[in-house]
């Protein structure tokens, strides 16, 4: 599939359009620890108008017997307008991500985005907490920058097998966040301890909102705490996607809206949803 690089039309389309199909150039694509790889591409300005929690839909290259046909959704791990840079943190799981892993500096990667509705930090919130585990950090990472830009304090509770989280921990610290690491290795990442850690923050300096993504265990815990302390929250969810734009309805999940189940499109109404409405599965 040759995809038109419509950069020529960039000028007239910016403003009017919000998502763009563009060829980007790979700057680097390296393993950052056991399971994850960090992909950095240089990207044109018009696609860098991003919100934390949004995603891009990537046209992954074919490699050997792998011929990924549909695009693959990938959260924005980092975006930098000044440097014209976009970052993804991904785990190799199948044909598409295996293809991504073959990209070398200078290669082209066609991306479509930014897509979806990201996280938002209410203007009156001054101290928020994110709770993340594993590759979920990829989705939550850009929230740190957003918090700093909004002069909002951030507590990042990072749970992982020991060495996996280091990258994001540094990133959070650089952004001035308070970082709490919980690891399987140290036996600190269990639900019980996680609850204590969160309660301590809530009852201590206070937390205005929770942010998380992915894990069912964390979702259930945060829903309980959110109700108990009346703290709002947001969660980013995943679902298989075809169009990524809201047209095909393949990415729906159920949500509990006041006792009534409703379906919403993860690519359009999400991927970020209200914490209370999300259903664990």
């Amino acid at each position, binding site marked *: 599939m040759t995809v038109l690089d419509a950069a020529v039309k960039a000028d007239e389309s910016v403003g009017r359009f919000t998502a763009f199909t563009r060829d980007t150039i790979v700057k680097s694509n390296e393993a950052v620890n056991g399971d994850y790889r960090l992909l950095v591409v240089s990207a044109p300005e018009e696609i860098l108008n991003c919100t934390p929690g949004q995603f891009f839909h990537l046209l992954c290259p074919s490699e050997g017997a792998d011929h990924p*046909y549909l695009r693959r959704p990938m959260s924005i791990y980092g975006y930098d307008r000044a440097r014209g840079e976009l970052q993804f943190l991904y785990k190799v799981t199948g044909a598409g991500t295996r293809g991504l892993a073959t990209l070398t500096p200078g290669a082209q990667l066609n991306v479509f985005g930014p897509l979806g509705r990201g996280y938002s930090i209410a203007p009156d919130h001054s101290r928020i907490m994110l709770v993340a585990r594993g590759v979920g950090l990829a989705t939550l990472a850009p929230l740190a920058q957003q918090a700093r830009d909004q002069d909002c304090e951030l507590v990042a509770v990072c749970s992982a097998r020991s060495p996996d989280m280091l990258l994001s921990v540094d990133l959070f610290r650089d952004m001035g966040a308070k970082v709490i690491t919980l690891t399987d290795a140290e036996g600190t990442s269990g639900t019980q301890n996680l609850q204590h850690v969160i309660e301590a923050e809530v009852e201590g300096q206070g937390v205005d909102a929770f942010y998380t993504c992915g894990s069912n265990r964390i979702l259930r815990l945060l829903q309980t705490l959110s109700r108990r302390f009346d703290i709002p929250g947001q969660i980013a969810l995943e679902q298989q996607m075809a169009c990524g734009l809201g047209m095909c309805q393949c990415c729906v999940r159920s949500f509990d809206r006041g006792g009534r189940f409703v379906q919403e499109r993860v690519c359009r109404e999400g991927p970020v949803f209200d914490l209370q409405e999300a259903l664990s599965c």
Partner: protein
Amino acid sequence: MLSLETRIGALALKNPIMPASGTFSEDLADVLDLGALGAHVTKTVTSETRNGNPTPRVCEVRGAMLNSIGIPSKGVAHFLDHVVPFYSQFDVPLIVSISAGTADEFARTCAALDVPGVAGIEVNISCPNLEEDGKAFAMRPSTTEAVMQKVRGATALPLWAKLSPNTGETTEVAQAAEAAGADALVVCNTLLAMAIDVETRRPTLGNLMGGLSGPSLKPIALRMSYQCANAVDIPIIGCGGISTVEDVVEFLIAGATAVQVGTATFIEAGIMERLIADLRAWMQAHGVSSVADLVGSVRDQEAGDGMLLAEGVS
């Protein structure tokens, strides 16, 4: 004086490129100028609200995809209130795809949608007939005719019947639709297929089976378009696997008057706009000045290369 205009019966389209139902929505306005398209074709809507099928609703196979979205629908009332007004901002014919479980319900749904702003109805008869054995209406001439007759009685709007490839009676179904008053045929919908994850041994679609779409479907949809163009006198709108300008031209040559683009939009959201530009360039390069010069121009009398003069076999 190159022109991309084409006519589907009473409807004049500024070009022959339009979206396929279920692969298009208002959301695409984030990406391209919806005003540039030949027509707007909406996701199939039913009179009542419906949920659609269990997830996973899509999977990919070699060079194509399967879907079992079903027809999740917010109902006709919501459609009239929210969707029709949105499209009225464009100078592009709005074609509304409808479905129902019975011929009468088809007619009621059709009547409810006969409102200003709606330029035509696409009758998606690939849904199960709830009054008989559950087979899709489009699988048989008799059930096709029954539905098309009822909807014909319910509206004076142009009616497009959308055929299914899951039948052995393509031309009979096409003729039944024409006889019952269809103004055009959309050829075709998805082809029933299946995939299984060999590691988990689970079907990759929540609904077990689903419809094949994308490049793999093209030679089948093209064959059906050709068969239908030869079997009826109403226009054919080709659909199935179109993703390049050569695909568009191939369908036109086979006898289609316009084409619908579906799955390709999932891979390249702006593809319809590009195909319009590419078609213009192709026509220019080939000295073709109007779409009508391509439509049905297949040289089917000259197919063989004349290399076989066999009277016997060695």
